[in-house]
């Protein structure tokens, strides 16, 4: 069974894909409060992601979740660059040099994540 992975689109990410074919793939979640792009992940790639990032897991919806933030950021970068959500995305994303960079950032991320600034504090 193919799994899925989603990338959340905040304002900045929506801006990045404006006018590209990716715009048509944006999906509303929870009444439109959230925008996401969903990708299908073949089983072998899903297993590879779970192996590379031990805390990642398949949730009750069949989505790969709890990957490092750095991984999700890189995933969006590759999608935005290739303007695609096909299988080739993962080929690019899991290239050794890219992957080791993501893993390096992920290791730091396990120690510290900067807390967000709340809207009322801006």
């Amino acid at each position, binding site marked *: 069974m193919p799994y899925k992975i*989603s990338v*959340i689109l*905040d304002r900045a990410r929506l801006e990045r894909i404006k006018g590209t074919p990716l715009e048509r793939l944006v999906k*509303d*979640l*929870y*009444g439109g*409060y*959230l925008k996401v792009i969903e990708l299908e992940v073949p089983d072998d790639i899903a297993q590879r992601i779970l192996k590379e990032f*031990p*805390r990642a*897991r*398949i*949730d*009750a*919806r069949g*989505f790969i*979740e*709890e*990957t490092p*933030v750095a991984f*999700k950021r890189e995933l969006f970068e590759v999608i935005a660059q290739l303007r695609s959500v096909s299988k080739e995305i993962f080929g690019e994303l899991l290239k050794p040099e890219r992957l080791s960079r993501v893993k390096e950032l992920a290791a730091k991320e*396990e*120690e*510290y*994540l*900067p*807390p*967000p600034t*709340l*809207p009322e504090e801006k």
Partner: protein
Amino acid sequence: MSLKINTPPPHGGKLVDAVIRDKDKAISMAVGAIPYDLKATRDPVSGLPIRNVYREIMSIAYGFFSPLDRFMTRNEVESVLKERRLLDGWLFPFPIIFDISEDDLKKLSVKEGDRLLLRLKGQPFAILNVEEIWNFDPKDLADRTFGTPERNPEVVKRKFDEKHPGWLIYRSMTGIALAGKVYVINEPVFKDPYNRFWYPPARSREEMQRRGWRTVIAHQTRNVPHTGHEHLMKNAAYLGDIEPCHGILVNAIIGAKRLGDFIDEAILEGHEALNKYGYISPKRHIVTFTLWDMRYGNPLESLLHGIIRQNMGCTHHMFGRDHAAVGDYYDPYATQILWEKGIPSFGLNAPPYDLDKGLKIRPVNIKEFWYCPKCGEITYSDTCAHTDIAQRFSGSFIRGLIAEGIEPPPIIFRPEVYRVIVKWWRVYGYPFVNKKYLELKERELEADVPPMDVPMKR
């Protein structure tokens, strides 16, 4: 027969109270006992603390685990593993073991009949009357505790391994157990914010009486609540007797948790925010906790939850999908299978409420709530027929959102609850359990122990 339901008796008939509040008596029990400093159980690979037995001592002594009043003997553990019953016949799901290393056993020269003075944070804390010293194989114990696909095919889907935090706790034990009755002789003082959520069973029952709650439904949590949890609580609470349940008792499991789970302080205050900001009236909602290094044992954990919450005075217990679960070791509805028809391979031939010396608490088995874009609201999965477009809640998805620094929308997460997460994120530099948090938690624990002088000899 009246249709009205009343507060159930404690499991086993009487609440255990093994807390010695008379200081002179406490000191006289401690004099001459062999001192031993409690140590964390650590993951042999990562070295991380995954359990501190002080939490089990507290849960025994304050009556959460009634009628269990001791660390188990070999025979009692065998009985639990065979049919999930204590030696006196009352249902109980997990071996509760005080383990000690071979080195410590030699250093202490402890033998059966001795008393051990258990120290916590360097202070006298509890007395263990050593009735039996016995050996076990930790891996075998871990496998038999949680089950295997071969022996327990009704609910176990995959062989347990080191990735399962509960299995790892048993697997990481030393293999030498000290069994016997345990008493807290020097009450720990809970730190903020734990202090305001501490309702051991006797106090919880008093509080329910004070509030005039006859029917109370328990909500198990190890999570900061999203609106799916909130809907579960609100809707499950409709099932009372002649009216909805008077109260909703949230009972959080506090202790060492899996990396990536929410941190304990945020769990408690996150649930509190629901009543503080009126999403569930504080007149009907109370947040409490139990100290326990969670075993993530799905149906078995739900049995322990039933015992704890019946002891706290609850009449009902809600059980959802993937109750107290991690990964796909168990069937997602294993807990509901237990409470609907029992799990014979675990010795439970009928649901816990239909077994002799079973439970009196009533299960409320609930499937799940999801967001339906067609209905435009959060709906119950057995009510809404738009299954093809329904958007399910996912705690993992929400944790991912939070980690990316994106505030979850109010339809899935209350803004005040998110602010609680951010508050504790700023304290610990991380919104979830990580290695640093686990080490800090082991060092600091949830409570301090007041100084107590114990003379060397009577």
